[in-house]
């Protein structure tokens, strides 16, 4: 076999592998689209390519008085926006202190962050439930937001601190000579230069409430307070097969915007993660 044919054969194999992966990736996604277009609500009778396809389920989600879908969407957006905003502020404060100052307890603080981020959220669920109950924030979006903001600190503070460390200290010194104080350096030097990583943190925290169903499940009780993930989960959990087509439609409506945002921003996500995570 000549070198050229060998090379061609290899390229063909690679394309074949990638084609197989395409099929494996697209099959579940297209199947869901197919389900959402089926006329009935039951999975038993649903077909991948329905003969008389319909957008009824999408219409139902938005217009039917029984549907809380729009409320869930609104709740999720509120939680996501608040979480992204406050998380960025709180995390960058902490990261700034840990990156630029030497103070008593600094080293142990960093160790603690590293360890705390390994603990799964579920370890804290019972206590969080009781605490929120004590301060009257159970079944409220505020309570959910507070838990999200507190829980993200260990991971993201480490990430942002790593990025802050890469910003040269000479810039701080120069700003201080020009008369900037602690706040001046933070707002005029660190924040603008750390925009990429802060963007990553904001995005992570904006996305989290759309993907997480466990915490809302424990914190939220009444359907009008549900977030999308919880609402959809209950949708399918109650009468699994009977609501499946509606669930499929609802899923597509949240999966598409999230997927688009991720695909557009994945490059920044990855560079942010590797920059903060490995060079930190």
């Amino acid at each position, binding site marked *: 076999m000549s070198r050229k044919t060998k*090379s061609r054969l290899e*390229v063909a194999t*690679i*394309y074949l*592998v*990638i084609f197989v992966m395409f099929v*494996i*990736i697209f099959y*579940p996604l297209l199947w*869901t689209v197919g389900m959402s277009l089926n006329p009935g609500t039951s*999975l*038993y009778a649903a077909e*991948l390519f329905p003969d008389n396809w319909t957008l009824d389920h999408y219409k139902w989600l938005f217009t039917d008085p029984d549907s809380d879908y729009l409320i869930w969407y609104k709740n999720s957006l509120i939680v996501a926006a608040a979480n992204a905003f406050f998380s960025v502020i709180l995390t960058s404060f*902490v990261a700034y*202190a840990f990156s*630029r*100052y030497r*103070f008593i307890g*600094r080293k142990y603080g960093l160790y603690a962050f590293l*360890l*705390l981020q*390994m*603990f*799964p959220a*579920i*370890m*804290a*669920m*019972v*206590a*969080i439930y009781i*605490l929120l109950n*004590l301060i009257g924030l159970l079944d409220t979006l505020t309570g959910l937001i*507070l838990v999200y903001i*507190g*829980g993200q*600190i*260990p991971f993201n503070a480490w990430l942002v601190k*790593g990025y802050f460390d890469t910003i040269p200290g000479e810039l701080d010194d120069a700003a201080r000579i020009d008369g900037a104080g*602690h706040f001046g350096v933070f707002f005029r030097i660190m924040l603008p230069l750390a925009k990429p990583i802060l963007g990553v943190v904001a995005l992570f925290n904006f996305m989290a409430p*759309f993907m997480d*169903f*466990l915490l809302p499940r424990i914190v939220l009780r009444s359907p009008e307070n549900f977030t999308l993930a919880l609402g959809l*989960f209950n949708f*399918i959990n109650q009468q*699994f*097969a009977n609501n499946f087509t509606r*669930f*499929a439609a609802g*899923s597509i409506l949240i999966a598409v915007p*999230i*997927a688009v945002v*991720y*695909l557009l921003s*994945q490059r920044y996500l*990855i560079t942010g993660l*590797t920059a903060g*995570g*490995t*060079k930190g």
Partner: protein
Amino acid sequence: MTKQGGEVSKGKHSPVFAMILSAILAGLGQIYNRRYLKGILFIVLEVSFMLTLGRFINYGLWGFRTLGVTPMEDHSIFLIIYGLISLILVVFALGLYVLNILDAKRNAERLKNGEPNPTFGETIRNIWDRGFPYLFITPGLFMLTFIVILPILFTVSLAFTDYNQYNSPPGNLLNWVGFENFKKLVTLDTWSQTFFDVFTWTIVWTVVATTMQIALGLFLAIMANDPRIRFKKLIRTVLILPWAVPAFVTILIFSAMFNGEFGTINRDILSLFGLKIPWMLDPFWTKIALIMIQTWLGFPFVFALFTGVLQSISKDWYEAAEVDGGSRWQKFRYITFPHVMYATAPLLIMQYAGNFNNFNIIYLFNEGGPPIPGKRAGGTDILISWVYDLTFEINQYNMAAAITIILGLIVTGFAFYQFRKTRSFKEEGNI
């Protein structure tokens, strides 16, 4: 304090005396050091701390020790929470107290050496500069304390109580039982058997599923990065698609697809080969399905990571290898693989830790099922989903907490060991 300000001659001011005074009452040492304003401020702070929180702390510590004495009136669970808050407050106050003593000592030493006290303006500046980092971490630390640290301490506390569905407040009081729950877990057959099974499967699951997703991600990254391949951008976009779709949606969809009766896997695909696999009813097949799904969900992130690293490896390495007559396998083994692993090791460790605690997939796919007769956990339950069941389904809070502690120790130990070996951590440790 007997001498008039300014008259203390060099060498007579005693740091030890200042420390003793400060230990008796915060601020006294400062007054001895002739920092009157500071001393009075410290005393005011200490007294108001005692007045406002003294009773609460006292009650909290009493409750934590006794867990209450009258059922219906004392709620043991709340008492644990109050007790932990009190403990945190006490630790915090003790920390400040030590700082106060050290401050008195340092100040007295300066006076002893004949250095003058700083002026008022200097003091303010000093406080601002030295206190600034604390000001900045306070809001974060506050949230962290109540949302992460307190709940973890609470879980740890529960593991040493007898809190379960038959013995729960407010009707009953809880008791401290020491290591009873851990002993039960190891010695009582019904518990130890289940624990062993769940534990083994958790390890197998973590190692197999994570390694599969990393291997597939690496394999595809090398394929898609081949210089002869075209449409790279399209290929990359499609290959990271599973990462972009919210996992809980995909898992629920897979759960429907794998449904034994009307799921598309059995109905549309395997029926072509005349097969019908009980995906949801046989633990073995459920495990296979779970590993396949996790590979589908997890490889894109690894793929994206590796693609970034592969593009940053200098061509010179490969050219040098070609000059030396290196085979393709050798190039992979000695250039690509070390580069990729070196750059991404901490993130890959996180992948293993993530799967060890991957509650979502286990719970959403089949709720840890199928159930196995005579066992306390479902056929595919991993430790974390078992803990969830014990807590929220059958209210065995104490056992759940005990297992959680074991789980937490494993993850932390493993992660700590691995992190210590990575470069970033070593640099940080040297400060």
